[in-house]
């Protein structure tokens, strides 16, 4: 398994090559090609490794390089290759490959073309460091690295003020989460004396419940920031200022899922604490529902999909909180595929419409862009949870599991599913069909995108259709990493502990096989209910925005307070602005006056004035006459000699 080191370092090499030679030698097509080759190599390597793990169910812990020693603990750059990390790595590399190919078309003609691909390669390297890590320090390294890459890419068009602000905002908001995450790492190190996952898992049994809970909650705080869950979600919609491939790769498929991955990776730690699991569950549930309501009324095509990402990440966290870790990870995989598809589809639309973002001004472009429309429809159906697309197989089990475990969570997830179906088809109808609202000038130029953009769409759409039927394979594949009964690296007492923590989900039985699950959904009451909800959402969107039987404006007027609440995103941004930005501004003003004006300026100016004053006084003693100096010396000698004689 030594070849696994190729996976993270091939994008790094691509990054270095593009970074050094991008502008001088490679320029437009070549730097993109180098980046695609770099990530494709690691995709191939990770698929080979994936097959190996799928066959054997083994795990490999490779220490590549000893980074630093703290006491008797060595922090190393390492690869932990087990089903979980193999799945995540495959998702990252494969989705990245197609998004890279799409980006070669999307970024065509941009003057910073090499810089874009350099950043993208850097991002993939950091993301792989994160997923492949076998200890918390390397995880944190990757965690911060993807944050950096995200910052650079959101602000890629840095001459736009809104983009620069959004990049800054994402960085600052993430800092809050990262601060908690770092505290969690430190507490884990103090508690366990090690930061390697496997060693931490081995020592779990004897540790105090409160400390475990604290560690899990602090680490989850980091995940909340990185995965943009409530209350740290505000950066993600604004992050859509970046180029669309970036939104697809970083802010939908991979980086924002890092929090979900981290929770699954540290599943034994979270499973040891009821409180931590409950927190994960409720934060995920609330994010899933609230983000869906925000998505209902937005008009920016990318922001709607961004809110949808928030909502779907909420589903994943809810699944993990419910104890359905495998279902959560499967939803992560399927979401990465169909959300990348949706983003790339919207990117294709944006290219055709010259970066027009407002869906109220679009319409009737479906006929001109058949491939984009078709693939986008597939993605939308998958998001809405319509069989046989992958979203159905990944999202329905979560809602059904919630029904069995926690009614409160079920109600919100169920409501969220209705809203999801509604808002994505609202977007779909407004963008691709409906009346003729498009500017005639733009309309003339609408055309299908070139093949290097449509081929990734087709591949991802195919994956969206096919992947759902591999449900059983994925669930079984993940068992050695996420089912305590199959986890080889856990001692028995920890297995019992983890198994007890996950006991809330023990009575849930979800058909692993895709076909029997489909049959079960179509026959049981619950399955039909969920399916009917999704269809109802789609139908309502059709009625309101396609055939216009119900006027959306009237509905909006009728429920004006709620509409305003949703439209203003539940006033989160306003509250944060009032508390943090304005409050901080006030605090800074006070500190400026007290600290700077009074204390520091007082000291600085005072010392200056004091020196001038003392100089004025002492200057009078400078008579310029030698006799005077000698007299002063005589007086000094007398004083010191007297002191010496009397104080002796």
């Amino acid at each position, binding site marked *: 398994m030594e070849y696994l080191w190729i996976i993270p370092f091939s994008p790094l090499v691509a990054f270095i090559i593009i970074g050094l030679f991008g502008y001088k030698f490679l320029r437009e097509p070549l730097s993109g090609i180098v980046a695609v080759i770099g990530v494709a190599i690691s995709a191939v390597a990770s698929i080979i490794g994936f097959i190996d793990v799928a066959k054997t169910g083994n795990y490999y812990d490779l220490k590549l390089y000893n980074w630093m020693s703290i006491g008797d603990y060595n922090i190393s750059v390492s690869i932990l290759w087990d089903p979980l990390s193999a799945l995540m790595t495959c998702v990252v590399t494969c989705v990245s490959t197609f998004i890279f190919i799409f980006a070669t078309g999307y970024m065509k003609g941009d003057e910073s073309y090499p810089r874009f691909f350099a950043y993208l390669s850097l991002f993939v390297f950091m993301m792989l460091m994160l997923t492949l890590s076998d200890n918390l320090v390397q995880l944190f390294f990757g965690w911060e690295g993807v944050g950096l890459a995200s910052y650079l890419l959101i602000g890629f068009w840095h001459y736009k003020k809104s983009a620069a602000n959004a990049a800054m905002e994402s960085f600052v908001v993430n800092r809050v989460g990262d601060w908690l995450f770092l505290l969690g790492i430190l507490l884990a190190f103090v508690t366990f004396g090690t930061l390697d996952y496997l060693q931490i898992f081995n020592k779990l049994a004897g540790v105090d419940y409160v400390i475990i809970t604290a560690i899990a909650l602090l680490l989850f705080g980091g995940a909340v920031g990185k995965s943009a869950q409530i209350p740290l979600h505000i950066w993600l919609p604004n992050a859509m200022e970046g180029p669309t491939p970036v939104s697809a790769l970083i802010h939908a498929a991979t980086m924002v899922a890092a929090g979900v991955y981290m929770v699954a990776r540290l599943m034994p730690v979270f499973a040891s604490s009821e409180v931590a699991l409950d927190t994960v569950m409720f934060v995920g549930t609330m994010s899933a529902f609230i983000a869906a309501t925000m998505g209902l009324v937005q008009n920016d095509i990318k922001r709607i999909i961004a809110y949808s990402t928030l909502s779907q990440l909420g589903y994943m966290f809810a699944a993990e909180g419910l104890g359905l870790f495998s279902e959560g990870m499967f939803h992560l995989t399927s979401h990465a595929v169909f959300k990348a598809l949706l983003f790339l589809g919207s990117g294709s639309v944006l290219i055709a419409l010259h970066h027009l973002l407002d869906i109220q001004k679009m319409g009737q472009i479906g006929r001109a862009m058949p491939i984009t429309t078709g693939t986008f429809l597939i993605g939308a159906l998958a998001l809405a949870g319509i069989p046989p697309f992958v979203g159905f197989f990944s999202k329905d089990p979560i809602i059904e599991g919630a029904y069995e475990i926690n009614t409160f969570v079920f109600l919100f997830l169920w409501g969220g599913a209705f809203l999801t179906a509604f808002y994505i088809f609202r977007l779909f109808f407004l963008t691709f069909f409906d009346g003729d609202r498009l500017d005639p000038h733009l309309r003339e130029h609408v055309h299908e995108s070139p093949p290097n953009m449509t081929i990734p769409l087709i591949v991802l759409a195919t994956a969206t259709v096919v992947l759902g039927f591999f449900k059983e394979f994925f669930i079984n594949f993940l068992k050695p990493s996420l089912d305590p009964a199959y986890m080889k690296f856990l001692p028995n007492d920890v297995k019992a502990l983890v198994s007890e923590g996950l006991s809330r989900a023990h009575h849930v039985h979800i058909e692993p096989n895709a076909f029997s699950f489909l049959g079960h959904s179509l026959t049981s009451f619950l399955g039909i209910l969920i399916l009917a909800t999704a269809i109802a959402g789609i139908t309502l969107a059709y009625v309101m925005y396609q055939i216009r039987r119900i006027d959306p404006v009237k509905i909006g007027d009728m429920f004006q307070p709620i509409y305003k609440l949703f439209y203003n995103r539940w006033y989160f941004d306003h509250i944060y602005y009032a508390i943090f930005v304005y409050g901080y501004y006030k605090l800074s003003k006070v500190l400026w006056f007290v600290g700077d004006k009074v204390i520091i300026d007082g000291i600085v100016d005072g010392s200056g004035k004091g020196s001038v004053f003392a100089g004025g006084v002492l200057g009078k003693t400078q008579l310029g006459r030698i*006799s*005077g100096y000698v*007299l002063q010396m*005589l*007086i000094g*000698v*007398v004083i010191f*000699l*007297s002191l010496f*004689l009397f104080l002796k």
Partner: protein
Amino acid sequence: MELSVVAFWILSTIAVVSAIGVVFFKNIVYSVLSLISALIAISGLFFNLGAELVGALQILIYAVAIVVFYVLVISTVPQYKGEAVDPKYALLSAPFGFILFLELAYVSVYGLWASNTGIFSPDIFQQISNAKAVATLLFTKYLFPFEVASLILLVAMIGAILLGKKDIVEDEEGGA
């Protein structure tokens, strides 16, 4: 009364009176003459203490060589017309000087004489002369400072010549 005691009182009185003269004579020539008188009295004190070599050098170097410098300069510079003493400074320095003298005298008379004694007891001076003892030390242990002292004299001579030369600065810089 012993002879040496009488000599001490007489010589020291001469020295102190001459010193007062040095300080307060308005005419600078009188001052120099008082200095000569004081120097001779001091060399007499040296003889009285048994330090013949130093006493002799005192007369040779101070009372002759150095005083000649002063006389030469005084004859070059025109007579100083202003008042000799600045009364403001005299009033200020007199009390402080008096206190300093009291303190020095206190330290001298009642101070501790705790220090290592050397090997040159009066018995040894009976056998070898004072000059021999000083010269031995000067040319063995203090040979290097002795040579440096000669160098200093040379440098001082050159410096004095350069300083005293007329219009040195303009000529030197013009040439360079």
